């Protein structure tokens, strides 16, 4: 098992190298002269040359790449011009906010989409099946920032049951003592019911926005994969043997239909991590997405590049976890490898 694990981890290396090369290239194609940019608008030609030397931009590209990789291995992603902090510590501080939001959205959409897909497949052609198809079609057409704004208008402005879309907690509330960085978990651990409720009500709308976005692909693949499994011989046999309907659907069909669903999660994560940026902007969520957007607008490139690299590495790790979870779901994978 350990051997398989290590073997699987090794297969991510080409992807990691690719990601580092691309992010290096992105740092080198900055508009205009990078040295002139870092030297500032009022710099003299000599000052620009000095900055060029200091940044190592006068050396050949392979050498620059080597020093870039050396910096990365020390966790040095550069300094943010706007916050004045190292990019890595900024990203570390803001990552829990983004992770909490993304995971909340994902869990919420799984809780809705998987049962919906199963029922749509089991009762093909029923009202629920049509509803599922409508949701799937609408879900892929809705721009995620638009859904978010609609929810804000309805639940904050009209119904007034949601708090203002301004971050993780009300300005007057204080954050729970940091253990995991997830406000929901931290406030539970601190047995602080009021903070839990407050952070939950802040999280709900952005979470639902992300969930609506992720609903479509998950429901679609669950339905399709259930349909194909339900038409197989072993399901017919299980039914003919007089097993209960529930047992046939959940134990026999669903476990076998799960694999394509888990595979799709990789794609869903790609979408979610992107959509997260837009949702964070709509809800003023203090995560790494809005950090990158603020830096982009201020033409502060180091945070943007750090963000792209961090997201790519996160995505590779998520895909690795998804891949490893196959083995837990499907005993055949364990036997064959």
């Amino acid at each position: 098992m350990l051997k398989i694990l290590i073997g699987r981890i090794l297969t991510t290396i080409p992807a990691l190298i690719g990601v580092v090369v691309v992010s290096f290239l992105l740092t080198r194609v900055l508009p205009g002269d990078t040295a002139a940019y870092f030297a500032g608008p009022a710099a003299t030609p000599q000052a620009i040359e000095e900055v060029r030397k200091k940044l190592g931009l006068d050396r050949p590209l392979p050498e620059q790449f080597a020093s870039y990789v050396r910096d990365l291995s020390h966790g040095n992603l550069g300094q943010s011009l706007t916050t004045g902090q190292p990019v890595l510590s900024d990203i570390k501080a803001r990552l829990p906010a983004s992770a909490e939001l993304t995971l909340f959205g994902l869990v919420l959409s799984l809780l809705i989409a998987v049962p919906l897909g199963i029922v749509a497949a089991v009762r093909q052609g029923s009202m629920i099946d049509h509803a599922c198809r409508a949701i799937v079609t609408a879900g892929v057409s809705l721009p995620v920032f638009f859904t978010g704004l609609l929810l804000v208008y309805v639940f904050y402005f009209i119904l007034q049951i949601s708090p203002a879309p301004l971050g993780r907690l009300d300005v007057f509330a204080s954050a729970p003592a940091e253990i995991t960085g997830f406000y929901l978990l931290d406030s539970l651990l601190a047995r602080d019911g009021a903070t839990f409720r407050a952070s939950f009500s802040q999280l709900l709308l952005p979470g639902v926005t992300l969930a609506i976005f992720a609903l479509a692909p998950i429901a679609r693949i669950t339905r399709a994969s259930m349909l194909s499994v339900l038409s197989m011989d072993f399901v017919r046999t299980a039914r003919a043997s007089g097993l209960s309907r529930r047992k046939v659907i959940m134990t026999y069909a669903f476990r076998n239909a799960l694999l394509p669903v888990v595979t799709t999660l990789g794609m869903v994560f790609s979408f979610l991590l992107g959509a997260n940026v837009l949702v964070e902007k709509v809800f003023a969520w203090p995560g790494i997405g809005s950090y990158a957007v603020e830096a982009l607008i201020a033409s502060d490139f180091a945070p943007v590049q750090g963000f792209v690299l961090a997201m790519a590495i996160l995505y590779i790790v998520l895909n690795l976890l998804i891949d490893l979870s196959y083995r837990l779901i499907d005993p055949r994978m364990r036997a064959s490898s």
Partner: protein
Amino acid sequence: MSRSPGTGAAILATLSHARYVISGNPVTAFAFMLLGLLLFCAVFGPWIVPFDPLASDTAATLKAPSLRHWFGTDALGRDVFSRVVAATRLDLAIAVFSVALVFAFGGLAGIAAGFFGGWTDRIVGRIADTIMAFPLFVLAMGIVAALGNTVTNIVIATAIINFPLYARVARTEASVRREAGFVMAARLSGNSELRIALTSILPNILPIMMVQMSLTMGYAILNAAGLSFIGLGVRPPMPEWGIMVAEGAGSIISGEWWLALFPGLALMLAVFCFNLIGDGLRDIVDPQRRT
């Protein structure tokens, strides 16, 4: 031209199948009508709108929708309806150009990978894998940030993140035809490999690539609008749906819903339209994959 035999008959069969699919599927017919409307707005939009999309009117700021201003007015008194209609051209143009770009590069790279195999295949596969290793929207952000904040770079970034999709579809389709009868025949009659790839393989996989194009058009529109929503590419006061939603976002918490709603709806309709057409075209070109 060395094509598969019976091209004329095949086209006729496809057309009659298309008529059958559209008549049996009113949704696809509706999608084509919607496409007609979008194209009309894109071509004639700036000339038929009631107000100048850029002209501000300080006497009529933030007015709710009325008979005079169908979609209301924004904080500068500009007519939202005129801006939404006039924006169609830019939004569609970004999507069309990026899809055309990736169709050319991704399609050709995929054909080369599938038809020639070997090193070509490995290099194209590696490039596609590297792009897929990123969350795609995040990569697009990084590309636009690095290349510079312009509309052209939004087109390029959108094309790059779609590259793996096109290259993979073209690769699969080209590799299954590598040893097909008509390819053998073309080879026997002395055509060069490059010529076979371009004149025998390319026309044969074109229909499937067209489906891919219409399926990714919606995604390209969403992606470009997302980028301009976070302030990349399109600059105010240029009317564009993504940036209009962003401008209206601040007003939504004070109740001015029309600023963000109408451009958002236009965006949704356009994406919806292309997704429906993509599904419809797939039914025509590739009936087996119908779900």
